[in-house]
């Protein structure tokens, strides 16, 4: 069967989108004071790094970047079984009173974000937690929404959205693969 891939964003579009998202983050949090970006493993971490680069270019401040692996906070261990590879959680600072922006690549059911909120709560009590995602593909199963969205698009259940990043995948783009295709 021929695969039906389409490109949602190319590398330059991703870059432009991240620039706008960085501006929106600063608007939302009123600057870089007490700001922490926390990427969700894996690609949310690279996206957070990129956002930090963009912010550093305009604000000359390097915002700290944390990483969250939510594997151990999933609600489907008993049904899906253990994920073989658990990534690293890295939040070496006091989070109390800080502004935390969670960064992820794709927002879908909302379950990952639910898990991330639970995990963050075990590290402290930020004054504000916001959510920034590159792609909101719809299909929520929980009452969760993003504060900052790169691109909103309705993708049918079963179809896949893949965010590819240079650092991990060798090239940057956002691809949609329709169900039934290889």
């Amino acid at each position: 069967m021929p695969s039906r891939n389409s490109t949602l964003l190319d590398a330059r579009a991703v870059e432009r989108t991240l620039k706008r998202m960085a501006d929106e983050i600063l608007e939302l949090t009123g600057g870089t004071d007490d700001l922490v970006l926390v990427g969700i493993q894996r690609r949310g971490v690279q996206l957070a790094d990129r956002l930090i680069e963009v912010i550093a270019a305009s604000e000359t401040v390097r915002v700290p970047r944390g990483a969250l692996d939510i594997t151990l906070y999933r609600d489907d261990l008993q049904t899906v079984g253990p994920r073989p590879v658990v990534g690293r959680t890295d939040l070496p600072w006091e989070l109390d009173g800080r502004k935390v922006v969670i960064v992820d690549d794709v927002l879908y059911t909302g379950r990952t974000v639910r898990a991330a909120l639970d995990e963050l709560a075990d590290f402290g009590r930020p004054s504000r937690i916001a959510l920034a995602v590159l792609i909101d593909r719809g299909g929520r199963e929980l009452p969760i929404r993003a504060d900052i969205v790169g691109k909103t698009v309705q993708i049918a259940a079963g179809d896949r959205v893949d965010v590819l990043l240079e650092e991990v995948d060798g090239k940057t783009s956002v691809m949609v693969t329709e169900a039934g295709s290889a």
Partner: protein
Amino acid sequence: MTSALGKDLLGLEALSSEQINLILDTAEPFKEISERAIKKVPTLRGSTIVNLFFENSTRTRISFEFAEKRLSADPVNVSSAGSSVSKGETLVDTARNLEAMRIDMVVIRHGSSGAAQFLAERIESNVINAGDGMHEHPTQGLLDMLTLRDHFGDLQGKRVCICGDVLHSRVARSNIWGLRKVGAEVAVCGPRSLLPNAIDEFGVTVFDRIEDAIEWADALNILRLQIERMTGGYIPSLREYNRVFGVTRERLSRAPRDVLILHPGPMNRGVEIDSDVADGEHSVILDQVTNGIAIRMAVLYLLAGRNPELAESAKAAAR
């Protein structure tokens, strides 16, 4: 597959190098949880785990209990003294009764070799061997390997000598099997009376002199001399043992390289290991204790969750 490990962890002899590396890799992120202010993740919430200890072992039981609690499981400790075990109930009856109370896992320590496997074949729950007789103590072997890996990066070609009472030691067996699978070179050193007759079949080098072992090794794993078992005339005296086989600073000072010092505990200071070695700069004995919790969390995590068909279909549907 139920999980990459299957239902139980009974020993390292039966595992592949991939499975051993999976456990070691999985343990890495679990280290961080014990460094948090709130040392707990909700992963095994609602799982009931019985720690069934037919032999005393404060250290191993506490380590398992910490691992279970930090994964939000509910542990129940059963020891032979004071339970119906002392009234003559069989192992299987004890376990079946516990299972009737709807438990998920059993961690068993037993004086008889093969007890963990015997149990695993007869109950539905996951079984983790926490030491069976003179057979295996897989989580100890794994935490030793994790500690070595922390230090050396890769265990391929690294030389580890297991010193002392290999004959009675399940720790020695788990170490030998585990280390050889991941490509380390393994030796043993001790009085011949404390080495198994069939030591040649383990594929290890044998040193009769501790000085030769120290010259050869990158790391020494110094076993506890099981003094309670030394009534059988295995060694002339503890003092004599220390004089011939004790790991001392003086002996280590003649080594051609720094030798990493491991000991599974509890130590007999001044017998198999001198205090200034145990507390010395190359000792990682307390790192072993810390790593023990991460290894046990990893094993609990990898054995949990058990609906294979659902797992496959869910994985396919995800994303």
